[in-house]
């Protein structure tokens, strides 16, 4: 839990511009697909979580657009796009 808070605090340092549509989504009906599971630990922003029913959920806010989940889980289980122009993370140092 402490780690989760620490990660939230780190993401809080970054500048994000809101997107009107979430650019990355778990495809309907795929929430239990095993291909999603590696993202639970791999997502650098910790945006993938699992609920009590064993479904993988994705929170859209705080995405660093790194691309890890696209490579790891693939586009059969994820709808994957970059956020619309001007939206998403805006690195000041990079």
């Amino acid at each position, binding site marked *: 839990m402490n780690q989760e808070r620490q990660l939230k605090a780190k993401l809080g340092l970054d500048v994000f511009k809101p997107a009107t549509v979430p650019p990355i989504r778990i495809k309907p009906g795929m929430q239990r697909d095993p291909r999603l599971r590696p993202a639970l630990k791999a997502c650098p922003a910790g945006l993938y979580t699992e609920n009590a029913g064993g479904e993988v959920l994705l929170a859209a806010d705080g995405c660093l657009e790194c*691309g*890890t989940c696209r*490579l790891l889980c693939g586009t059969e289980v994820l709808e994957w796009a970059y956020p619309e122009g001007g939206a998403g993370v805006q690195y000041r140092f990079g």
Partner: protein
Amino acid sequence: MDKFEVIVVGAGLAGLASAYTLAGAGCEVLVLERGEYPGAKNVSGGRLYVNPVRDLFPDLWEKAPLERFIVHEGITLMAAERSVHLNYSGRELREEPYQSYSVLRSKFDRWLAERAEEKGATILTGVRVDDVIKEKGKIAGVLAGGEELRAEVIVACDGVLSLIPERSGLRCAGLPRDYAVGVKEVIALAAGTINERFHLEGDEGAAGLYVGEASKGRFGGGFLYTNKDSISLGIVVGIQALLEDGRALDVPALLDDFKSRPEIDRLIKGGTTVEYAAHVIPEGGFNALGNLWGDGILVAGDAAGFALNIGFTVRGMEYALASGYLAARTILKAKEAGRFDADTLAVYKMLLEDSFVLKDFRNFQAAPALMENPRLFNHYPEMIAGLLRDIYAVPAGTKQRLYPTLRKTVTLGEMWSLGKDLKAMMKL
């Protein structure tokens, strides 16, 4: 309807190098960047080796917003409870022109974009390219924000995921084994403190790579670069290692563990993290390169797979700058011929082959496979650090002779595998 001569997708180093060169030669070029400003989406460890690209952009370097020139090259074998640190410093690193610099991409790319604009390039920010326009098998432009933008030729510099080349049919979605993910923090620290802690003067800088525990014995490692008044600290780990059931690594925790190592903690103590970033990195080398051109399209930078990790140096930015530049030279030749079909654009391949870009990629073709050797990350750091522990140990009573101490670690079996690993290294 507007038709441009050249549309460049992405204002990273490849795209900006391309635009700068094209605009400088009088070409009409439009750069489309999805970030709020050039550099907004761009992350690197951040180390730029200038020598290979110095002459391609002779006017750029003097005023470029580079951070520090690197005079200390460190490599640390990090075992679970000990580490072995090797520092290289040499006169040539302290003499101008300096070999390499730490950089912060948001700053650098923004500045480079201004230089490209001065040459006459148009850069539109906040514009995401959604797709390419295909006509009779040729790429005729791009779709962005519901608008059709047509061009004689497009240069895809859209970064490591290479979505534009994928949409153009030049490559398939990448495989986990050909990529790594890097996560890093930029930690603000006073310049004077950095100089003291790293034994630097003025704008001198230090670079460090950490092998072993930093990536929990898996393919990857930690890195540290000193900037003017901050430290870039991060870890890189192969995407494949994130797939392995039961042993999969927790990426955010990996960086926190690395930060709390005593070797690192004392270097960043008192610093304030000001940014947290993550980005995927191409690691597949020559064999993972996609198609580099097609009818009406050229691919440069990370989008082409141009990043090369050979252990001691991890490079991508020079390849991005050079491939962007060579894509521009190709387009200028094609413009003379008045044709932008794949046959005409094949000049790009020739230019890349003649340059350090594909020469390096061919020379180091074996590197990605060698880096897959798990012993490099999970065995040697522990073994070497353990050997040094025994060599330096002074127990109560008598100390063991050195040779038997050495042989306790370097057994016949160990020598045998070491020999095999060294033999494999001969390909490098």
